[in-house]
């Protein structure tokens, strides 16, 4: 196709969008409604993903070292732990440091426990390569010499993984369904406009237009429909997300969990909504046109 022919199709598609008036508005609205739902769903899904990885990073095995263990024995234990194939990183944390932390957050009552009265244990914090491996590593660590006990995030982490997993799964399924419905809605709306143009398409063929020549303006019109339909969803999702983000920031500050920062995240979502809009718009017109361009 020549460049000027593509330009011609572009011009034709804009003209047709304008001349179709209310039909165009109806098709754009169908896109708008779908993209609002998709946008909200995507924002939730992507934050759940973020939450899941925050949790994953948080999950580790804590190995409590017997009280009367020498420095050498501790090193042996550390090497042993590091030798496991599941283990990513082992960090030592002395009971003194831990006491200071506790005092820092809970106050001076704990100051009584100085020196040998410190009730805490020296620990090794063990990060595994996969969060799932924590349970297994904790079990193994328990059987080692110089180890008093070993714990991991345990059942609460397990439950969380399950919940996150099902949110992701259902979110994907619902998004896919929504997009399917959108293509159906749009193709139906466009089909009505195309149906009323059935005669016109026949005339175009009589004057020697190829199927491609007839199809392009319709496809582009569908793409415009998708693009215009993305405007309101983008505005809603952007402003809504920033509002929620600012609202939740204070309450999340004390935890190690964070929502995705609006800047890049919203840019991604916007781009995604625009692309989805254009694709379902064009797909919608493609689907509804196929029947008329058989021969």
């Amino acid at each position, binding site marked *: 196709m020549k460049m000027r022919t593509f330009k011609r199709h572009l011009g034709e598609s804009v003209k047709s969008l304008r*001349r179709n008036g209310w039909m165009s508005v109806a098709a754009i609205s169908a896109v708008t409604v779908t993209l609002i739902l998709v946008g909200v769903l995507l924002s939730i899904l992507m934050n759940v993903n973020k939450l899941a990885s925050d949790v994953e990073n948080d999950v580790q095995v804590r190995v409590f070292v017997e009280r009367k263990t020498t420095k050498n024995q501790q090193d042996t234990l550390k090497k042993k732990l590091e030798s496991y194939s599941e283990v990513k990183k082992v960090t030592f944390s002395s009971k003194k440091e831990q006491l200071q932390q506790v005092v820092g957050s809970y106050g001076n009552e704990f100051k009584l426990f100085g020196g040998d009265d410190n009730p805490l244990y020296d620990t090794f914090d063990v990060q595994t390569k996969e969060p799932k491996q924590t349970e297994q590593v904790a079990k193994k660590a328990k059987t080692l010499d110089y180890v008093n006990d070993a714990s991991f995030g345990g059942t609460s982490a397990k439950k969380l993984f399950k919940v996150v997993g099902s949110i992701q799964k259902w979110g994907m399924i619902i998004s896919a369904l929504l997009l399917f419905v959108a293509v159906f809605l749009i193709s139906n709306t466009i089909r009505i406009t195309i149906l009323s143009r059935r005669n*016109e398409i026949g*005339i175009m063929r*009589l*004057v*020697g*237009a190829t199927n491609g020549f007839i199809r392009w303006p319709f496809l582009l019109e569908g793409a415009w429909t998708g693009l215009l339909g993305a405007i309101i969803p983008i505005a809603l999702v952007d402003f809504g997300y920033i509002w929620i983000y600012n609202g939740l920031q204070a309450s999340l500050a004390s935890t190690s969990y964070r929502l995705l920062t609006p800047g890049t995240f919203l840019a991604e979502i916007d781009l995604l909504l625009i692309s989805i809009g254009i694709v379902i718009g064009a797909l919608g017109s493609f689907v509804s046109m196929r029947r008329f361009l058989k021969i």
Partner: protein
Amino acid sequence: MIEFKNVFKQYSDDIIASNDINIRIDQGEFVYVVGPSGAGKSTFIKMMYHEEQATSGEITVNNFQLQTMKPKEVPFLRRDLGIVFQDFKLLPRLTIFENIAYALEVIEKEPAEIKERVDYVLDLVDLADKSDKFPEELSGGEQQRIAIARAVANKPEVLIADEPTGNLDPETSDDIMAILEKVNKQGTTVIMATHNSIIVNKYPHRLLAIEDGRIARDEEGGKYGYENENV
């Protein structure tokens, strides 16, 4: 050049719309296709632009062998033909200018060339002042003149017209005939189906009479005598 060899067209068991048609039309001819309603005129003409396909036989139009032609080639066959209908078939959403330009955009002409050519054919049919109107704002006769302008815009070898004056009054029909004769003088083959005997006898040309799907007569300058009550 258009040639039909042993062409049959059967719509169903009892409807044979073309019955062993053998005909040859040379470049530059003006040919009437006459006959009563239902005789098979439209079918004969539709086969030329591959709207209908022959059940058997061979059809050659310009350099296309229609019985072996692929669907993809159909648009290219039609670019060498200008087609005019009783009901005009203009695109209602496009202005007069855009309607004619469409036939040229299809063959990817440059905008400047399109403008020049559209202006030329609008002059040819004497409707340059209607260029920005929409089809529904024009009278039937004017719409038909636009349809002819569109048909000849890309300088086709053949102009095919199926009852172009069927919906028009006698005076307007004379305007249409004047334009068709002008186009024919410029070298374009004109094939026109009609059952209007006044026109056929007033502007004599080669006459093909079809009856029950057969070519009943083929005469240069032939007169057309029956069905006068239909005029």
